[in-house]
């Protein structure tokens, strides 16, 4: 029953997409985080997907091979009254771009839905195969 492998393939994709969603949540939560005394603010994180063969060559699953930090410059906002402001009156914040993260979130949730749909269809087909000849 080669169709059982679909659950492995789509399952790996679902877990990868949920990890991507998790990273997006971290980024959005820290979008307005202010840098500590060392001046190092929160850096936006992105997942890197990689194909992983599952058993045979036809079953290509996905895994998150790495979580990379963005190298974009940290955002500096002029706010002299802020307790964390430096001598010039600037506050260093994270380099998260909320618009990008929202797009990322929608893309991840759509991919997640796609794979759930694939699993449901595979399940229906397998159940009908079980009833063969009855």
């Amino acid at each position, binding site marked *: 029953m*080669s169709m059982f492998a679909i659950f492995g393939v*789509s399952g790996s994709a679902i877990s990868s997409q949920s990890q991507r969603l998790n990273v997006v949540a971290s980024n959005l939560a820290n979008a307005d985080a202010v840098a500590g005394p060392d001046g190092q603010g929160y850096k936006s994180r992105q997942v890197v997907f990689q*194909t992983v063969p599952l058993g045979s060559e036809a079953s*290509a699953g996905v895994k998150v091979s790495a979580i990379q930090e963005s190298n974009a410059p940290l955002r500096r906002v002029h706010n002299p009254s802020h307790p964390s402001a430096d001598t010039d009156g600037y506050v260093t914040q994270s380099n998260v771009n909320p618009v990008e993260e929202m797009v990322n979130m929608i893309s991840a949730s759509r991919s997640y839905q*796609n*794979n759930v749909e*694939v699993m449901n269809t*595979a399940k229906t087909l397998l159940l009908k195969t079980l009833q063969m*000849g009855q």
Partner: protein
Amino acid sequence: MFANLTNGLDFQSKALVLRADRQRLIASNIANADTPGFAGRDIDFKAAMRDATGGGNGASLALAQPTGAGAARGLAGGITNPQHIALQSSTTSLGSSGPRTDYTVPTQPAMDGNSVDLDRERASFVDNAVRYEATLRFINGTSRTMLSAIQGQ
């Protein structure tokens, strides 16, 4: 005599296995829709079915043999309609016994080198699921016909 009874079932069961293989392949494509550099793959069902039935004989011959419609109209890549997308040849196959797979031609190339067209894959997935079910019904119908013939009721 028994072979005559199961000939039709043989053909349908091969079709069912191929449909299951294709379903798995499309699931892999959908799972890797966001993976950079992933090349989508598909099965040329007609050619795979012809290979699986060994050119075919008897009743399966008419179904398994190429119609020649595409060749008559001068179309390349084994397509029968100019609006179909030709599959590029590759040397990969699904293991030693599985059907030959081909890389799909991306209609809208992406910056990350991913060649999966999600809309097309979803359409193929539903199409393949319906055809899988149709094959299942053919098998059920054949077995029911044989049973009623045996029981003589």
